[in-house]
């Protein structure tokens, strides 16, 4: 009897252990290894030594703050666009979807069945200088002959917005879907106009969804480098591109580690500050549950 009870007490640990070990070994430990690497000095031929050279951080920032700031700005703009584009879509599916809600959500998720790289590559086909769209616009004289979209910030932000939009719509949809219809009725019974009902009932109650969406969109968008590589040019380089180049082309692992660590800490601090400002309890939990 006692053995059975002990077994029952240990059961959750046995269940969680394999996944937990994998995450600790290949996610937590590597993060600390990266932290340690970020203060080393040396080069790829002679090897790297731990010298607690914290200047790697200040040097990295001095050298690449332009790309850092650019990544944050692109990420913010793409996230803002995702809210503006995605919120009405979430409303449409949640309130007007009727029996077709799952079909509409399925259509929304359709892009995920095509590789991220191929989707982005397809946009570069569509938006190319003499491609499907621009050649028509040029024929019709709407834009000048030397007008181009690729290699501009517009193209990169376009790609980021496109690629991460579903991550915004889904959490907002979930929040709206949970909304009790009785609340809407109560609002209209109390002579709330449609606009007032939206502003005072729907919008506040959907904020946890918006929060989750903002985190799920902003973090990957700011850290992305695929869009900047495929759709951008030399003036749209983002911090992800720099980290990749430092690791693989320059093989300057300490600088690369310092930049990655800076990026992670910056984004996490941003997320937590935002969580406090918005004041949505369980918001992180909600984001995790998506």
């Amino acid at each position, binding site marked *: 009897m006692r053995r059975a009870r002990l077994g029952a007490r240990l059961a959750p640990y046995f269940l969680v252990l394999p996944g937990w070990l994998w995450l600790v070994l290949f996610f937590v430990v590597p993060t600390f290894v990266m932290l340690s690497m970020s203060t080393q000095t040396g080069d790829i031929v002679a090897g790297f030594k731990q010298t607690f050279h914290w200047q790697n951080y200040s040097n990295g920032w001095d050298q690449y703050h332009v790309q850092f700031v650019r990544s944050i700005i692109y990420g913010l703009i793409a996230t803002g666009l995702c809210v503006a584009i995605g919120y009405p*879509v979430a409303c449409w599916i949640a309130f007007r979807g009727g029996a077709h809600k799952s079909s509409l959500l399925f259509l929304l998720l359709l892009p995920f069945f095509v590789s991220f790289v191929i989707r982005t590559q397809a946009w570069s086909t569509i938006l190319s200088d003499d491609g499907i769209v621009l050649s028509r616009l040029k024929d019709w004289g709407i834009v000048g002959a030397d007008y181009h979209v690729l290699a501009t910030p517009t193209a990169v932000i376009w790609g980021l917005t496109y690629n991460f939009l579903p991550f915004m719509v889904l959490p907002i949809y979930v929040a709206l879907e949970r909304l009790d219809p009785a609340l*809407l009725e109560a609002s209209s019974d109390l002579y709330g106009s449609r606009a007032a009902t939206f502003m005072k009932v729907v919008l506040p109650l959907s904020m946890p969804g918006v929060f989750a969406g903002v985190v799920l969109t902003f973090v990957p968008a700011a850290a992305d480098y695929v869009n900047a590589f495929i759709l951008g040019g030399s003036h749209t380089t983002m911090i992800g591109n720099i980290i990749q180049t430092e690791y693989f082309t320059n093989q300057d692992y300490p600088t690369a580690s310092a930049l990655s660590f800076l990026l992670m800490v910056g984004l996490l601090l941003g997320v937590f500050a935002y969580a406090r400002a918005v004041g949505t309890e369980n918001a992180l939990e909600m984001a995790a549950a998506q």
Partner: protein
Amino acid sequence: MTALDERVDAQPAPARRHARLRPGRWALPIWGWLVIAWLTSPIIVMIIFGFNDTKSRLNIHWQGFTLRWYRELFQIPDLTDALKNSITIAIIVTVIATVMGTLMGLGLGKYRFRGLGATNLLMFANIAAPEVVLGAALLSLFITMGIPRGYWTIVIAQVMFSIAYVAVTVRARMAGLDPNLEEAARDLGAGPYATFFRITLPMIMPGVMAGALLVLALSIDDYIITSFNAGQVQTFPLWVYGATRNGVPPQVNVMGTFIFMFGVLLALVAWATNRRRAA
């Protein structure tokens, strides 16, 4: 709106109540369909340009219809190898991550225990951390330990970012289950294994399947984390990324089309079986 309409509106069908929220009768659906069209346009372009009889290396201009790329699908050996790697890695990763993630989801969904909060935080950090950082950190570990990057480091990396997704999906499924069923099985003399395989597992199966599908999609699709830990090994997205600067051959469009159709088919089958089970 007349008084009669008002009364019809007030009928208790709950779906109708939402109808009062209307910022314009047509604006919302039009916007929604426009966004869906926008989201699907690159997919349509991908499919169409798989039939393009292109003469140059750049597959950008429409030059007539051909089935040539379907016939010559495997004429680029490197690309074929990359696709094979992607498929075998996806299968291995799906099996490992689904088993570990399901166990984790069971533990998290069924028990309250010390360390529950820490485990939740660990999973949240894993999901929320930017991909570049996950990839770079793991690469730092492999470099420090002198482990050469290749096929198995890709598997390790992909399992690492997949476990939490399965765990979350399975836990969500657990939340809606009646624990009395398991107790009833045990009262009727079923051992812990029989209870698990005949009661618990069938009940959480839709969650497990959804998690597995998600991992399959994440694995086949992943570029960033994989590229950091791939060494010289190519996967499908890695090969395509490398080819973007010199022009992506139409075979990529054809393979992308097949992966797309297969994914859609799989999702529809999973959906249909779930529905039948629920009914």
